[in-house]
């Protein structure tokens, strides 16, 4: 048997139109396969089938979400700062002084369940390459993590693995990890959420796009060799519901090499600086398939690739496997012939393997109409001859049916007002400590102390503060602040409002540092889109986010959708994680969440209105295991006013600290401000101590005001229409809270033990 007969070619596809093909195993539906045949006018070769199956997978094509995501563009507020919008690898915003910032959050949920360490590690690697691909130097990362109950056996397998993977990869890469989230809920058992965010900075003129212009230009693959890891990851892992056989899919998870990625970053930035590339794309999901089709589609539409020239880790790989491999740390560049030698010299300096695998070609008008022409050869035979735009841009779009779940009204009607409240001061005190020490509320130090937050030397704020903040370069005082938030409980109760609350919290977290919120990214974690109830949650959620972003003038610049987060028929609570980026002109003006010894005697003010709002609250969950009622009211105008007060206060140096109120309400916010500064406080809770402490009304912040600035601050609040109440003073060695019926006091030592000992007790001390 000759070698040529062992693989499928275009000639063979034409002569054997009826050969059965395994499209269903690759995740394609009957009608999708039929459409490929119609586009090509014949059956696809097995290599073409590989390309279409990964490019049209849910993960790459957004076929179920596209119709809903459009409104982020349609409702985008007028914003001069937006330089590159949705659709590219990541959005780019202007932050002033000629600098631009690009940021994006992405999920790596399924791989992180199958193989926590490598799954989480390659999640970091992937998002960092997305940012690098825009022409930016990556400057920081964050992670939003959610797991099953902390003490569940599987969490003890998954969480340490995920954390070690992020720690291993991010630390070796030399990017500071400046914050994120850590949450626990039984719904995430068997389906952890691992969402990684990266931010990068560049000068305006250095923005790069995924495109392949100029016939005759070289197509260069550089970075790691291509191996059998991660084959079919996109279609098999990310686009199918988990079942008991998941563990058998281990080879689908990629293996990361952060050292190679570090070299790739430095090498790419040097290539950009010397202006040696005209287009660039990273190889993530769908590997070579995605990079070639997207680059070709973004350019002339024409490209010729010789797959024999792809450097392999394993010489036995077939063309289909080469096309589907998700081997990490690879990039593809379009290089002008005159600059090829210089390009290769930079790669050699960094010991980066680079291979010319093809060239950009011209297309006829007829070919352009069909979607361009991508031709690939293997062992001298043509194995791919297809219009690339049909794979990258013209995938199927589904209008999935959606329906409000039948149990939604039952859930909303289950009002937490009926729950037993603490009857005595002793009970109230005990519940404050119980909420503070709960795994999703307590100090995440066990996790975050495994991440390098100092490297690069520009970290101004990091965990545990409300946002991370980095100075954009050494030579500038300008900084960016970033926060991510999500609350699956609120979103389960009301997906529209819950998503707006997640957005509002991230917005507020950025505002409490003194930064002005500017732009939004999102990672939408949901169950199966084939379930109408899940699709209803998704539709409501995206509408909520688009409306909120329109109202507050912060455009969505990009993001990621992760469907099929469910085990069997049980979906996770819908968990849109919203990232907000803000800008601060002078990082020296930043605000922290810590009360300070230096400000003992400073007045503590509570900003915003406190209502009796306990639906979906941490108190209801932790004390009663209850989820029901309505989430807190959304008031976007109040959030905006609060943001203006905070930005003005930071500019004028009026505030000593600012901390947002969220999970666990005032009780948790006060405890955290005390513990972070190592100083107590004395506050008066008024007539209803329980509601004052545990309500989770939105648009609230607790601040301490510098002596002699109280009047000016109160005036500022009044001017912006923000309700303000003086509730106490900073000082002492206890969290001391009086109310009309009595008083409770918790010494800082006891408070600290409650806050800091939970995770070490579960996952092991240092």
């Amino acid at each position, binding site marked *: 048997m000759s070698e040529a007969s062992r693989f499928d070619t275009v000639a063979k596809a034409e002569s054997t139109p009826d050969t059965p093909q395994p499209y269903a195993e690759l995740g394609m539906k009957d009608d999708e396969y039929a459409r490929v045949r119609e586009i090509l006018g014949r059956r696809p070769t097995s290599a073409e089938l590989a390309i279409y199956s990964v490019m049209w997978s849910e993960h790459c094509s957004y076929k179920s979400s596209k119709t809903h995501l459009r409104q982020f563009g349609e409702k985008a507020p007028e914003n001069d700062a937006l330089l590159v919008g949705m659709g590219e690898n990541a959005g780019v915003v202007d932050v002033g002084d000629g600098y631009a910032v690009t940021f994006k959050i992405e999920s790596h949920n399924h791989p992180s369940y199958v193989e926590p360490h490598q799954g989480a590690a390659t999640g970091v690697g992937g998002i960092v390459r997305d940012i690098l691909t825009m022409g930016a130097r990556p400057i920081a990362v964050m992670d939003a993590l959610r797991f099953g109950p902390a003490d569940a056996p599987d969490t003890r397998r998954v969480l340490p693995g995920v954390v*070690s993977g992020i*720690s*291993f990869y991010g*630390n*070796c*890469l*030399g990017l500071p990890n400046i914050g994120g989230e850590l949450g626990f809920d039984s719904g995430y058992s068997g389906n952890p959420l691992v969402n990684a965010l990266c931010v990068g900075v560049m000068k305006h003129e250095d923005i790069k796009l995924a495109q392949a212009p100029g016939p005759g230009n070289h197509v260069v693959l550089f970075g790691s060799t291509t191996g059998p890891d991660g084959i079919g990851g996109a279609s098999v892992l990310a686009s199918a519901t988990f079942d008991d056989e998941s563990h058998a899919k281990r080879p689908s998870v990629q293996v990361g*090499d*952060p*050292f*190679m990625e*570090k*070299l790739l970053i430095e090498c790419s930035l040097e290539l950009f600086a010397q202006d040696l590339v005209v287009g660039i794309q990273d190889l993530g999901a769908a590997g070579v398939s995605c990079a070639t089709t997207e680059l070709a589609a973004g350019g002339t539409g024409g490209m010729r690739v010789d797959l024999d020239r792809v450097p392999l880790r394993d010489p036995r790989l077939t063309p289909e496997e080469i096309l589907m491999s998700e081997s990490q740390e690879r990039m593809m560049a379009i290089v002008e012939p005159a600059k090829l030698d210089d390009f290769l010299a930079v790669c050699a300096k*960094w*010991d980066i393997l680079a291979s010319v695998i093809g060239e950009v070609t011209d297309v006829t008008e007829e070919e352009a109409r069909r979607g361009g022409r991508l031709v690939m050869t293997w062992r001298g035979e043509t194995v791919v001859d297809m219009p690339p735009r049909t794979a990258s841009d013209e995938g199927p779009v589904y209008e999935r049916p959606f329906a409000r779940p039948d149990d939604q009204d039952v859930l909303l009607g289950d009002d937490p007002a009926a729950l037993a409240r603490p009857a005595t001061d002793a009970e109230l005190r005990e519940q404050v400590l119980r909420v503070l020490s709960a795994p999703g509320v307590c100090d995440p130090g066990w996790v*975050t*102390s*495994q*991440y*390098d*937050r*100092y*490297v*690069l*030397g*520009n*970290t*101004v704020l990091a965990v545990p503060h409300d946002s991370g903040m980095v*100075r954009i370069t*050494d030579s500038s005082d300008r900084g960016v602040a970033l926060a991510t938030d999500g609350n699956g409980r609120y979103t389960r109760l009301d997906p529209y409002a819950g998503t707006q609350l997640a957005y509002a919290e991230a917005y507020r977290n950025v505002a409490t540092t003194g930064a002005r919120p500017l732009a939004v990214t999102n990672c939408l974690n949901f169950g199966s889109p084939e379930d109408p109830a899940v699709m209803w949650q998704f539709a409501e959620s995206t509408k909520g986010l688009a409306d909120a972003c329109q109202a507050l003038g912060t455009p969505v610049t990009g993001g990621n959708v992760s469907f099929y987060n469910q085990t069997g028929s049980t979906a996770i609570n819908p968990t849109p994680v919203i990232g907000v980026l803000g800008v601060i002109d002078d*990082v*020296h003006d930043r605000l922290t969440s810590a009360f300070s010894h230096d400000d003992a005697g400073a007045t503590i003010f509570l900003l915003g209105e406190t209502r009796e709002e306990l639906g979906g609250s941490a108190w209801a969950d932790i004390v009663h295991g209850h989820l029901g009622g309505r989430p807190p009211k959304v008031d976007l105008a109040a959030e905006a006013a609060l943001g203006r007060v905070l930005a003005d206060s930071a500019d004028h140096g009026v505030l000593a600290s600012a901390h947002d109120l969220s999970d666990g309400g005032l009780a948790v916010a006060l405890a955290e401000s005390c513990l972070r500064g190592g100083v107590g406080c004395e506050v008066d809770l008024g007539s209803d101590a329980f509601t004052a402490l545990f309500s989770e009304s939105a648009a609230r912040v607790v601040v301490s005001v510098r002596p002699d600035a109280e009047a000016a601050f109160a005036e500022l609040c009044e001017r912006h229409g923000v309700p303000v109440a003086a509730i106490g003073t900073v000082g002492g060695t206890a969290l001391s809270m009086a109310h009309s019926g009595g008083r409770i006091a918790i010494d800082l030592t006891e408070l600290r033990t409650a806050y800091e000992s939970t995770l070490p007790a579960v996952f092991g*001390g*240092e």
Partner: protein
Amino acid sequence: MTARVGVVTFPGSLDDRDAARAVRVAGAEPVSLWHGDADLKGVDAVVLPGGFSYGDYLRCGAIARFAPIMTELVPAARSGLLPVLGICNGFQILCESHLLPGALTRNSSRHFVCRDQLLRVEAADTAWTGSYSSGQEILIPLKSGEGSYVAGGETLAELEREGRVVARYVDSSPNGSQNDIAGITNEHRNVVGLMPHPEHAVEALTGPSVDGLGFFTSVLARLADGAPLAAATG
């Protein structure tokens, strides 16, 4: 004349820009040195920065030891004439190069640890610690996965006897280091290896303190006073 302090970049070095910034803040001129060039460019002192040189494959610092730049650096450092500060991965490289005794092993917690760490400066008579006083406590970041210092009994006794423990962790060791050792020096006191990162504590804005700056001002003062660096015979 402004002193020139070299900062070596190996593939996988991460804190090289930070080290260069610290040199600049201290008032000297940082000079980039490339691992592949056997050329110290005539610098007055050298910092081996933190990171994961060559991916830390095989063993931390084990491959960096054989880099071309080290063929120039090792004899100059051994002679006592060239001040060298190895931070974190740089400390590991100094041990692998046998410029310093002992080795750095996996943290006792088995986890990477990043925290603000209190140190006590024990030896204020090295090329890199003259600005401190003996017994002074300083707060600088520690961030490492393999920072547990180990050495043979005789070596440890010698380090202690000769006052060559440069800094110790205060309270308890965060990584299981013998004798709570955070840093050591050689016989000539020109080579210092330190696990925590002084270059991340040179600006109030970004560090937990500015206590780390002293390492960099110390070497400049030493270079300026013109005293022979190879004080000991060896």
